[in-house]
């Protein structure tokens, strides 16, 4: 039972981590909470569903399709809703309001056009179960865990071993100085949103397979923000740890206490972590420089 719960928790935590990393990546560069990230995840889940059913494509094609949809949405979102603010050097509060506007717009647009019903994914990966030392694990959970680890490792490799990755890291320290060294800020910000969008598409298709696709999926993606804060805003290792901690906590609470009050627990965990460590588990202490 213990092993079973741990593995289920890890699988959910993996998806949370994947969502939180995309959100934290944008935060580390642009320093604002991109609340539209959840809507991109939601639309990624829809894109995956439609590619699978309407086009009758196979799972890898659907995966690519939802990642592509995430990339397009993320980049368009940045172009239309954030770039004009960035050019004007607007306050972070304005970015947050704009992001929230995008989230409300997309979520309700889906409501108004596709309706509120749940689209359940066809069985692509099957419901087969792997037995491992007395615990039975769904193949979907295994795939989710595998794909999130690969994606996060890939992102880490990209950030630390390529020129563009170096530019992104430089921008997260200081955008003005980075641009003085010849980094093209517009292109790097576009790249950051493309990467975040791809991660969003990937997490979207797995969330969709696990919980179906519906307009208010955003409620699950909100957990990604909570996970990122627990781990420390703007820190990618923090986002991973926060996601896994939250996933494990929620699974253990639902199994051993009650699944109804699960969300109350995750919220209290957030408040307690912030009380003890004001910058999250891994956050750097970001004081504003003058």
């Amino acid at each position: 039972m213990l092993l079973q719960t741990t593995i289920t928790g890890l699988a959910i935590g993996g998806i949370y981590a994947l969502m939180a990393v995309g959100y934290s990546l944008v935060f580390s560069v642009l320093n604002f909470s991109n609340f539209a990230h959840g809507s991109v995840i939601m639309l990624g889940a829809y894109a995956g569903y439609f590619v699978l059913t309407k086009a009758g494509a196979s799972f890898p094609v659907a995966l690519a399709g939802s990642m592509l949809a995430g990339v397009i949405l993320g980049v368009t979102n940045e172009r239309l809703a954030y770039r004009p603010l960035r050019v004007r050097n607007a306050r972070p509060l304005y970015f947050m309001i704009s992001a929230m506007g995008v989230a409300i717009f997309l979520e309700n647009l889906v409501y108004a056009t596709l309706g509120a019903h749940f689209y359940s994914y066809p069985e692509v990966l099957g419901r087969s179960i792997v037995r491992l030392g007395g615990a039975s694990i769904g193949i979907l959970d295994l795939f989710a865990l595998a794909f999130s680890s690969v994606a996060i490792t890939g992102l880490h490799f990209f950030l630390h071993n390529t020129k563009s990755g170096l530019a992104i890291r430089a921008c997260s320290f200081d955008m003005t100085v980075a641009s003085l060294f010849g980094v093209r800020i517009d292109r790097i910000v576009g790249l950051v949103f493309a990467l975040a969008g791809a991660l969003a598409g990937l997490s979207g298709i797995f969330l969709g397979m696990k919980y179906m696709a519906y307009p208010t999926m955003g409620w699950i993606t909100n957990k990604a923000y909570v996970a990122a804060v627990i781990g420390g805003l703007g820190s990618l290792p923090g986002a991973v740890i926060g996601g896994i901690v939250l996933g494990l906590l929620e699974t253990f609470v639902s199994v051993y206490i009650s699944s109804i009050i699960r969300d109350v627990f995750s919220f209290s965990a957030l408040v307690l972590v912030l009380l003890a460590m004001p910058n999250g588990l891994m956050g750097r202490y970001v004081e504003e420089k003058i």
Partner: protein
Amino acid sequence: MYIQGVLTVAMINIISTTGLAVFTGFTGLFSLGHAAFMAVGAYTSAILTYFVKAPYPVALLTGVLASSVLAVLVGYPTLRTRLRGDYFAIATIGMGEATRVILENLKITQGARGLPGISQYTTLPVAGAAAAIVLVLARNMLASVYGRNAVSVREDAVAAEMSGIHLLRTRMISLVFSAGCAGLAGGLYAHYLAFIQPVMFTMVQSTQITAAVVCGGTGSLTGPALAAFVFTVAPELLRAAQMWRLVIYGLMLVLIMVFRPQGLMGYRDLSWQGLCSLAARLRKGVRHAKG
């Protein structure tokens, strides 16, 4: 009767919007879950009048107190960090969900079915008077030392802190005021509808309050109040567009941030003096045109 009802709801929305205008517009912090404060105010006051038969004003004030306490509990750990308001904004998402879950599972709130048969104490004069009191209170508070501190925190938190302003205290006062307003609005709402249910206080409600503040103008009190009024009355006139209302709110938030971030009435307020000078300017313009 119907018009009276719409106006009463408009007054109630003006109260909650004024609270958020102080928090977002003047202190520069963001909340995604003000509906939770409304819910706490609504349930506290409704339980008091329904089960305890407490007098209405006492119940309302207890509701205000309860949401202020919740604000302190959520605000203290999250506003403590100097790193802007992101932690608080994200904590409010969690707070909204946690509040709903608790309300749906407590015995005294009768779960998701809601509380029916609350006495209908809120009439248009009651709501109107409450709105007027809140607006005057907010104006006086913003004209005080405290209000100037809040504005300086919004403009530049580091500079404000260096001039000796206590960041946490200023932000907390602003939060408690705005949560208190939301609690009052919730209490009035419960005793107007005579029925409350946890699903009434969701993201939709929070969104409407935020949209009113942003459209009305950050740094203005009358702008958001006006916007709250329009946002309550307009959907009544355009029933067909009900489904698209939130789509439009979302689009409006983005468009305003992109094209006119100060909102309808950014940094200005309607006042008698202002109207007089506007009239004078118009007259001058006419004279110029003639000359």
